[in-house]
């Protein structure tokens, strides 16, 4: 903390700021127009992920109307400012929240911001990482600080062993469905407990990614040896003597036994099932075997109207089974679920099988590094042989910006984070689920439980 500003807010030093071409471009452009310089370009990073195409041979031209201007403005302003840019053809290009951990840019105990709401993903490494607006990004670039009101604190302890076929994505959809999409409003959430400690770093990234869908200021997991081993040797992580010094510091970064939180949730997660959403908010999620809930049984009038509206939009009826609902498309990708472990898990189900006729299936690795690593293991062949498109990395069809989509009113099962109205395309009906549930559904042509396909 640089200074106390008043009783509620502080001036915090920002250790790392990340930008992308969608919202970073306007921040860099405005800063230039205002005649302000970037105080520490060496602490700023920029990637092309939101607008860039994911088709082979891509360049500055995109399917997104006006997209080229975002890419070129970002490149020009980032280069003038001296910011490290992971450009369209850079071998390290990828989704911001995939490449930041992958390249060792986010570190335990750092403050990390990005004008992107899923910045909370990076809390998985024990960082304080949160999403900001473009104006706040200008503030960070100009001053290397941010004026922040201290959020309340909340610890979510998840205990018990996860069932087969249940992962971080299912845990978070379950938690948000249970506590509501505004369940962590105003709180910085620490995810703790045996079920969280047992998760590898990539699964923790998925867990923290969805903290914003829980309305949390951010999510984080206390850094441990799993994180330290993950970071060792990464490009921007400390090395040699500084590594030892950093490690000694990082080992002090955990809540002590006397830590007091404004809110505590202690939940047993051993009965959580693979989850799938039925509506237009991440809180509209149920276990894969469950039926669509009946709004008439909802006591709260606003929630009830929201449910009714969601069912109408999704073309579903109360009591209808989600399992066996026909789908037209399947998507594996996004900052939620596009890392190597996600692709491995999906590929394990897809190996030697074929996507159902009439289903368009796409896999978009989260970074070019993930793509190369997957190809080195032969995962690309498994996806392609099964009938998936295998793309270059980027945010891709997590959201529709006038370019690519699955088509009007298409029903999509997706590993992404938002099932909002028209998010993935014009009136697209998105069902959020884990990579293995999406893979199993793509094979079946219907929303399907992945568990019968496991372990063979």
């Amino acid at each position: 903390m640089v200074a106390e500003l008043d009783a509620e807010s502080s001036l915090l030093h920002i250790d790392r700021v990340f930008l992308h071409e969608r919202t970073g471009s306007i921040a860099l452009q405005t800063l230039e127009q205002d005649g302000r310089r970037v105080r520490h370009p060496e602490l700023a990073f920029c990637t092309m992920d939101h607008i860039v195409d994911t088709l082979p041979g891509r360049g500055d031209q995109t399917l997104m109307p006006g997209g080229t201007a975002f890419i070129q403005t970002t490149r020009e302003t980032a280069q003038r400012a001296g910011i490290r840019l992971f450009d369209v053809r850079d071998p390290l290009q990828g989704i911001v929240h995939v490449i930041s951990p992958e390249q060792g840019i986010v570190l335990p105990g750092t403050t990390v911001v990005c004008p992107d709401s899923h910045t909370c993903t990076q809390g998985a490494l024990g960082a304080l990482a949160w999403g900001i607006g473009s104006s706040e990004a200008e503030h960070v670039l100009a001053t290397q600080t941010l004026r922040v009101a201290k959020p309340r604190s909340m610890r979510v302890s998840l205990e018990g062993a996860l069932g087969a076929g249940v992962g971080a994505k299912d845990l978070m959809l379950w938690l948000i469905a249970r506590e509501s999409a505004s369940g962590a409003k105003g709180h910085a959430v620490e995810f703790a407990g045996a079920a969280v400690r047992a998760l590898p770093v990539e699964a923790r990234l998925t867990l923290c990614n969805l903290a914003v869908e829980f309305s949390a200021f951010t999510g984080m997991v206390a850094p441990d040896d799993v994180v330290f081993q993950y970071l060792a040797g990464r490009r921007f992580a400390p090395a040699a003597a500084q590594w030892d010094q950093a490690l000694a510091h990082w080992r002090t970064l955990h809540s002590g036994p006397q830590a007091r939180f404004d809110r505590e949730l202690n939940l047993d997660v051993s009965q959580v099932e693979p989850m799938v959403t039925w509506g237009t908010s991440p809180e509209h999620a149920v276990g894969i075997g469950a039926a669509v809930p009946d709004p008439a049984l909802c006591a709260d009038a606003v929630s009830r109207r929201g449910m009714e509206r969601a069912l109408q939009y999704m073309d579903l009826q109360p009591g209808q089974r989600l399992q066996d609902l026909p789908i037209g498309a399947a998507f594996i990708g996004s900052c939620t679920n596009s890392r190597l472990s996600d692709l491995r898990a999906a590929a394990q189900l897809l190996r030697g099988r074929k996507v159902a006729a009439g289903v368009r299936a796409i896999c978009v690795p989260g970074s070019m590094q993930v793509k190369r690593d997957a190809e080195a293991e032969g995962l690309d062949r498994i996806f392609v042989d099964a009938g998936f498109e295998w793309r270059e990395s980027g945010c891709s069809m997590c959201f529709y910006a006038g370019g690519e989509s699955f088509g009007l009113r298409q029903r999509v099962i997706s590993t992404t984070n938002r099932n909002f109205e028209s998010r993935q395309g014009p009136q697209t009906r998105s069902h959020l689920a884990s990579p293995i549930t999406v893979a199993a559904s793509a094979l079946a042509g219907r929303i399907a439980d992945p568990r019968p396909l496991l372990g063979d």
Partner: protein
Amino acid sequence: METFVVHQGVAAPLLRANIDTDAIIPSREMKFVSKTGLAGGLFAGWRYLDAATRSPDPAFVLNQAEFAGATILLAGANFGCGSSREHAVWALREYGIRAIVAPSFGAIFQTNCIRNGILPVILAEADVALLAQQAGPQPLTVDLQRQVVVAPDGQVFRFEIAAAAREMLLEGLDPVALTLRLDAQITAYQARDREQRPWIYLAKSAPPVPSVPPPGAE
């Protein structure tokens, strides 16, 4: 920066929970690297029967004659959740919205409002519902100085707001300019921190990265 002291205007009710920034301004409506030219895309998915031709949907509140000139929105909980896109706030402001009254807001959206002269007012859900019942041609008053909303029937609702946010809006302060005045403190912090956490402070030029163009690149 734009100030907000007191505003009187027509309030339009949009009492749905979890209205996300994708709904406020769909990604496909963000066509330029610009903070302007966004008002036409505001609520595009709901406001138009066909977004391409901009033919209005008469069922949407802002298309109804009595709310055509609305400058205040009455909304459900968690308004502005989802994507961090400040374009949602720029679109609202360009359309003419000066204040939004809701039980709660998306955190990033709430900060973005304050940076752009829009007042986010937090009232209990029942109070927002009471205001919505009176919504119509009679204007509502939102007074930041007194921290009250005055309904058309004279009923007064007090609201709380963080002191820093209130001051920013009342004075129209530029937070970057304010912080730049603390430059010496920032430099001193960094000097101390560099002793304790030298690994934070990367070299001015990042390590060179192999930039091998993929096959077929120009």
